[in-house]
C-alpha cells in the first residue's frame, strides 16, 4: 500500500475524530434520551420489542400520574428547603472560617487548620449511625423534651452544615488576592467585617460562587442521610421521593416512573444548560487548583 500523504492522514484523523465524538454522544446521550422517550410512552409501547424509539402518541398524562402517585409537590418543597439552608449554612461557615485562616493572626493557627482538613477524611457515611442515634435519642436528654429530632428539617440539614472542603478551597482563593488592596483597606481604617464584605468577597466572587455551586448540587442530590433521617412523605426530599414512586409503581409502569425521574433531573439540567461553562469550571476547580 502506498503511504498516505499528510493531507490524507489529516483527513482520516478528522473522520476518526468525528466518529469518536458521535460514539461518545450516543453513549452519554442515549440513556438520557431513553428516559425522556420512556416518560412519554404508553404501557403498550413500553411492552413492545423491538422498542419504539419515539413515542407515536406522547402520553403527557404520565407526568400527571407520577405527580399524583406520590406527593412530588411536597418533595420539591422539602428539597428546596433542605438545599437552601444546607447551602447557606455551608457558605456562612466556610466563608467565615476561610477568612479567619487567611487573614487573622492566631497562635497555632496551622494546627487548627489541620484540624479542619482532617475532617475531609471522615465522610458522612462513616458517622451515619452515631449521628442517627444522636438525633433519635441523645437530643432528648440535651433538650429535656419528649420528642426527638428524627424526621425534622434541622436533623437533615445540620450534620452537613460545616465544610472542610469549602474552607480549604476558599482560603486558597482568598490568599491569592492582591496584598496591596487589602493593605490599602487597612490604612483606610476599614475593620475586618468591612474588609470581608466590601473587598474580599467581591474580589473572590468566582471561588465563592464555585463552592456555592458544588454545595448546591451536593445538597440537591443528597440521598443516604435524608433516606435514614426522614420517615414520612411530608419530610422526604425529591431524591428519596422518586425512589418511593419506583417502589409504588413496581417495575412495570416504566412510563410513569420515567416521568418521575424527569422531575428530579430536569431542574438541574435546565440550570446546567444556562450556566454550563461556570458549572464545569466550578465543579472541577477544586480538582485542578487544589
Amino acid at each position, binding site marked *: 500500500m502506498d503511504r498516505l500523504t499528510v493531507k490524507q492522514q489529516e483527513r482520516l484523523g478528522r473522520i476518526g*475524530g468525528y466518529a*469518536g*465524538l458521535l460514539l461518545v454522544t450516543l453513549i*452519554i446521550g442515549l*440513556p*438520557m434520551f431513553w428516559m425522556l422517550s420512556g416518560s412519554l410512552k404508553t404501557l403498550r409501547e413500553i411492552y*413492545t*420489542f*423491538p*422498542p419504539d424509539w419515539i413515542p407515536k402518541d406522547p402520553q403527557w398524562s404520565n407526568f400527571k400520574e407520577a405527580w399524583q402517585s406520590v406527593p412530588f409537590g411536597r418533595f420539591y418543597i422539602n428539597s428546596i428547603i433542605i438545599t437552601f439552608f444546607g447551602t447557606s449554612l455551608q457558605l456562612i*461557615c*466556610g466563608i*467565615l472560617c476561610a477568612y*479567619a485562616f487567611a487573614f*487573622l*493572626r*492566631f497562635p497555632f493557627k496551622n494546627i487548627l487548620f489541620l*484540624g*479542619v482538613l482532617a*475532617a*475531609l477524611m*471522615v465522610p458522612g*457515611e*462513616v*458517622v*451515619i*449511625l*452515631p*449521628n442517627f*442515634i444522636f438525633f433519635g435519642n441523645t437530643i432528648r436528654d440535651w433538650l429535656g423534651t419528649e420528642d426527638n429530632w428524627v424526621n425534622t428539617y434541622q436533623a437533615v440539614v*445540620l450534620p452537613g*452544615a*460545616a*465544610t472542610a472542603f469549602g474552607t480549604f478551597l476558599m482560603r486558597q482563593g482568598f490568599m491569592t488576592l492582591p496584598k496591596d488592596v487589602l493593605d490599602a483597606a487597612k490604612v483606610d*481604617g*476599614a*475593620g*475586618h*467585617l*468591612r474588609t470581608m464584605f466590601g473587598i474580599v468577597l467581591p474580589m473572590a466572587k468566582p471561588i465563592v460562587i464555585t463552592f456555592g455551586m458544588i454545595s448546591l*448540587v451536593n445538597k*440537591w*442530590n443528597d*440521598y*443516604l442521610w435524608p433516606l*435514614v433521617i426522614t420517615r414520612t412523605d411530608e419530610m422526604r426530599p*425529591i*431524591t428519596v421521593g*422518586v*425512589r418511593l414512586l419506583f417502589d409504588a409503581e413496581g*417495575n412495570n409502569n*416504566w412510563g410513569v*416512573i*420515567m416521568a418521575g425521574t424527569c422531575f*428530579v*433531573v430536569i431542574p438541574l439540567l435546565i440550570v*446546567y444548560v444556562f450556566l454550563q461553562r461556570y458549572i*464545569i469550571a466550578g*465543579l*472541577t476547580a477544586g480538582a485542578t487548583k487544589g
Partner: protein
Amino acid sequence: MVSTSGRTESPLAGTAVGTQPRRASRAWFRRWAGKEWVLFLLFILPNFFFLAMFTYWPLWENVKMSLQQTDLLAFKSEPKYVGFDNYQWLFDNRTFRLVVKNTVIFIGASVGFTLLFGLLIALLLNQKLRFRTGVRALVFAPTLLSGAAIGIVWAYIFDPRFGLLAQILDWFSIPSPHWLDRPEWALPAIIIVYVWKNLGFASVIFLAGLQGIPKDLYDAAKVDGAGAWWRFKSVTLPMLSPISFFLMVTSVLSTFQAFDIQQVMTKGGPAFATTTLVYYVYEQSFGQGANFGRAAAAAIILFIAMLVVTAIQMGYTEKKVHYDG
C-alpha cells in the same frame, strides 16, 4: 465598626454613634471583637462547632460503639465492652468477606474504566473538532444528576425484555442477561452505571491537564522525529501522571462512599452481590437484623481503608514536592 488594632478610630465610627448606651455597647464590642484573636475565634466557631458535633464526636462514639456489644432490646441498659469481638466476627464472617471483595472489585473496575475512557474522551476533545464544546458539556452532565434518579433510569435500560440494552444486544443477536437478578451480572451492571456517571468529570480534568502541557515539548519531539504514538508515550503520558494520580485517589475515595445507585437498583443484592462496605454499614445500622456494634466496626474499617488511601496520596505528594525543590 471593627478595627484591627482596637485603638485606631475608624472615621465612620463617630458619625453613627448617637446615644450613650449605644456608645457603651459599641465600645465594649470594639474592645473585644477588635482584638484579632477574639475575632478569629468568633469566625471559626460555627464551622468548628458543626465539625465537632457531627464529625469528630460521632467518630469517637463510633470507635467506642465498635468495641461494645449492643442489645437492641435492652437499648437503655449499659453497653458491654467486648474488645475487638465485633471486628473478629466481621473477619470470620463469609458475607463480610464477600463485601470486602465486592468493594475492591467495584472500586478497581469503576475507577479503572472511568480513568481509561475519561482519558480517551479527553484526547478526543483535545483535537480541533467542531462541536467539541457541546460534546464536553454533554459528557459532563451525568456528573450533576442525582444517583437515585440515574439508578432508576438504568434499571429500565437494563430491563432484559424491553430495555434499551436488550435492543442494542439484539442487533448483534446477543440475548440480554438478566442484569439485576443474577449475582454474576449485578455488580458489572452497577459498575457500568458508575462509569457512565463519572466519565465526564474525569475527561474534563484530563482535558485541563492536556491543555496544560507546553506545546514546545511536542515540537521538540517532532524535531526528534517522534511519531504520534511515541509522542503520546514520551510526552503526554508522563506529563499527565500527576493529574492521573490525583484523579485516581479522589475517584477511589468517592467510590468508597457510593451508595445511592445500588440502593435504588439492587438493594445490595442479589445474594449480597452488590453489597459494598458503605451499603453493609447501612444494612447493619438500619436494616433487618441490625447490629450496632458490627455496623460501627464496619464503619471504622471503611474509615481506615480511606485513611490509608489518603496517606498514600500525601506520601506521594510530599515526595513530588521534594523533587521539585
